[in-house]
């Protein structure tokens, strides 16, 4: 038995595949999903989405949205999502530094969100290189 994983953003479809297992960054923490999972609706946080096909892991950086699990069908509606090879690490590092600078980001909550997105991108890009 396998899971059917779908990762879509408003602009494109990133994944539509049979997978063995998915780890999804929920708004309130990571969710591990295996076949036979109960129907679930939730909000998506910012983080690494990992899925396994044939024992091999694949990584995506996702940033906010929704997820639905139903009948072994996992749908991830992300506001934005990137594959590791699409990530501009230089830019992410720059953003990370900017986030720590109170002159650029006056709102601390916004600064944290920017830093989190940058960290996720860097982590995902590095994962894929391992």
């Amino acid at each position, binding site marked *: 038995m396998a899971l059917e994983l*779908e990762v*879509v*953003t*408003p*602009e*494109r*479809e990133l994944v*539509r595949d049979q997978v063995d297992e998915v780890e999804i960054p*929920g*708004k*309130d923490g990571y*969710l591990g999903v295996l076949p036979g999972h*109960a*129907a*679930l*609706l*939730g*909000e998506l946080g910012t983080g690494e989405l990992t899925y396994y096909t044939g024992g091999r892991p694949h990584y995506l950086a996702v940033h906010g*949205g*929704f997820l*639905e699990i*139903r009948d072994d069908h996992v*749908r991830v*509606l992300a*506001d934005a999502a990137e594959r590791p090879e699409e990530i501009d690490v230089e830019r992410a590092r720059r953003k990370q530094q900017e986030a720590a600078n109170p002159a650029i980001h006056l709102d601390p909550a916004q600064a944290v969100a920017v830093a989190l997105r940058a960290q996720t991108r860097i982590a995902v890009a590095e994962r894929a290189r391992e």
Partner: protein
Amino acid sequence: MPSLIDIRRRIRSVKNTQQITKAMKMVSAAKLRRAQDRVIAARPYVSTLRKVLANVAVAASGEDTGENPLMARREERRILLVLVTADKGLAGAFNSNLIRAAQHFIADHAQAEVTLELVGRKGRDFFRKRGARIAGDRLNFARPAYSDATPISGKAMDLYRNNETDAVYLLYNEFKSVVAQKVVLRRVLPVEVPEEIQPVDYIFEQPPEEMLDALLPRYVGMEFFRSLLETAAAEHAARMTAMDAATSNAGDMIDKLTLYMNRVRQASITKEIIEVVSGAAAE
């Protein structure tokens, strides 16, 4: 009777025009293909979002926490009409159909106060000259990104939440096929939640009302994004059709002018022969 040189000049000018229209047609065809791909790429997100929203709305309506401000229905006394036109012309009746539809809308809602939000240069220029009530305007987007739609939808939602408008309508051209565009008028606020046929018993990671708060802005944002995508595709399709017609019209004109030119040429030769012959006969 015009001289041969004049007619030749005329033919050359029509040929030049034909080359331009042919090139424009080809450019539009290439752009259309890409725009169409983007419309198709947005579909899975929309259909899934719709399903999720339907389920969350059912779950949220069970709890007695009052209606979401984006779903609250009011008497339509102040209406915001978002008109999406193209920036450029030469696309047949693409823009004028939309502008006419907008005028009809305003006339039909004479009892209400209609304010316009204009996306695209053509609509902006038209209504600005006529002194309509305009909330804001912006140019259209050649390659719309989701982040282009969110400022427009965000503004509409703010107006609605702050009780500054009672309804928001979206007016744009939908891409039906390469030869057909359809003017579409859709009410986006208050949000009408799609009906789910069979509600599923979900586990909710977050409370349904909280999820509804997060879902509705994205649903509205997607409506706006879709209108931009559809407009882009429809515009290229309309221009392609218009330029195709222009190219074949130019071809007809060249044929007609060539025929006329040959007649003029023959007439002048005949005239010369008669002159020579009668000149010889007179001697």
